[in-house]
């Protein structure tokens, strides 16, 4: 199993955190991982993107040329991200902010209203964790079944109070993905 994912969004949406958390959880689930972030020199804004690979085998190139799954968090990253999708791959759209479908009739497109779900749970900033749940559900590559234990080793103890909300976001993301598949 090798899952190559390309994630894009605007700076501040947690694109880099989503990629990091994804590979960290994958590593804790026993997979080999690579994560390569790419962003401009801007302090805020701009388009942030991440090439992320989780695999049962040694990873050759860490650059994702053709992604099995593309995650699009914002409208302005559609153009950059849509062409990264492999033929017949999956595109996960944050439908709260992306209002036009990518021009990829070959791809399976799943609409996840990440910001709306996150705000319902209590904080719009965990929209990226909603998306991580959806990514787990649709790829099956990283199970996230024990994410609460894993996140405890990722975050310093001062942030452990936020973990239950993040877990809720991940679970809601899985559910949202199930209901649109």
């Amino acid at each position: 199993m090798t899952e190559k994912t390309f994630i894009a969004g605007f700076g501040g949406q947690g694109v880099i955190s989503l990629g990091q958390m994804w590979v960290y959880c994958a590593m804790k689930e026993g997979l080999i991982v690579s994560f390569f972030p790419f962003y401009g020199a801007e302090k805020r804004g701009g388009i942030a993107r991440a090439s992320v690979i989780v695999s049962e085998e040694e990873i050759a190139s860490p650059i994702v040329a053709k992604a099995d799954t593309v995650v699009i968090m914002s409208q302005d990253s559609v153009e950059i991200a849509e062409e990264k999708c492999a033929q017949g791959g999956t595109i996960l759209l944050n439908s709260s902010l992306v209002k036009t479908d990518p021009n990829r009739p070959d791809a399976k497109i799943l609409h996840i209203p990440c910001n709306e779900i996150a705000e319902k749970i209590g904080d719009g900033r965990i929209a990226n964790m909603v998306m991580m749940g959806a990514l787990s559900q649709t790829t099956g590559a990283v199970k996230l079944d024990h994410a609460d234990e894993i996140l405890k080793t990722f975050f310093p103890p001062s942030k452990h109070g936020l973990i239950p909300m993040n877990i809720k976001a991940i679970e809601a993301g899985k559910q949202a993905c199930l209901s649109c598949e």
Partner: protein
Amino acid sequence: MSKEIRLMKGNEAIGEAAIRAGCASYFGYPITPQNELTAYMAANMLPAGRIFIQAESEVSAINMVYGAAATGVRAMTSSSSPGISLKQEGISYLCGADLPAVVVNVARAGPGLGGITPAQGDYFQSTRGGGHGDYHTIVLAPKGVQEAADLTFEAFELSDKYKIPVLVLADGLIGQMMESVVLPDPVDMAALPRKPWAVGHQARDKRGVNHVSSMNLDPATLEKANLKREAHYDMVKKELCRYEEMQVEDADLVIVAYGTSARVSMSAVQAGRAKGLKIGLFRPITLWPFPYERIAALAEKEGRKFLSVEMSMGQMVEDVRLAVNGRAPVAHYGRTGGMIHNEEEVLAAAERMLNA
């Protein structure tokens, strides 16, 4: 007990490996894409009882390395391409004084101030000395985070052993990317070999006065010193050449690539083999000394071709040509300016050459 696996950025893994290797003093100046390395050292050197100084410039930092190395401690600096250019005078002085030191270049795109994204355009500078005068530094090229940690750790050992500065040549991708890494065990700093040539503490240690300098105004004496160093280089060339091979035995086309380009080329080889193409990969790990002899031996096979894949306009390709010495076709493929080729582009270049 199995060792702890950690998820780290290349820059951080290099910093932690240096601390574990007994780096007693780090001198740096910020530049993207190696900033996490300087930041890691700022956060972790002082608590470990070591010295961290953010110098006022790259020139200052490399000269602080010279001073620290002359006292016999393990010393290090790091930067990215334009900053490494600024350090070249100091690296030449270190080589002239036969001092060990570790310099890390997390390379970015040039020339000039260029851009902040990964590139391999510093190959000539790294392998041809880089500064003025007849000298070389040992150059190690990691292909990922694990090897960045391992080679940085080993760089301190090699530098002490040979009394030659060691350059770890990474790039912005290896510095910025995160992979899992198992770190080497820390050395016992008290047990590191003594350096009787070092300056300082002579009264305490009851040693004679030592003088560490790269200056030598008598041409005959300087020539003798340079000849002696050259003989030393010949020994290093015999002992240290290191490389990795992937499916080269039956290959009609051998891709030669290091660092990030080697990782991408691994994927291209896998994709090419899946299509039935006989492609292999030769990855130099030491860029100086360069594995000329092994490449020359590979060029003996009838009809074999070589493609040097680099994120540059073609620099290592000249070393491949020197090694092959006209016995086989050699070409270059690569992106530049901070653009990174992907496996499809590399495979397409390999197929063009196979069909040419």
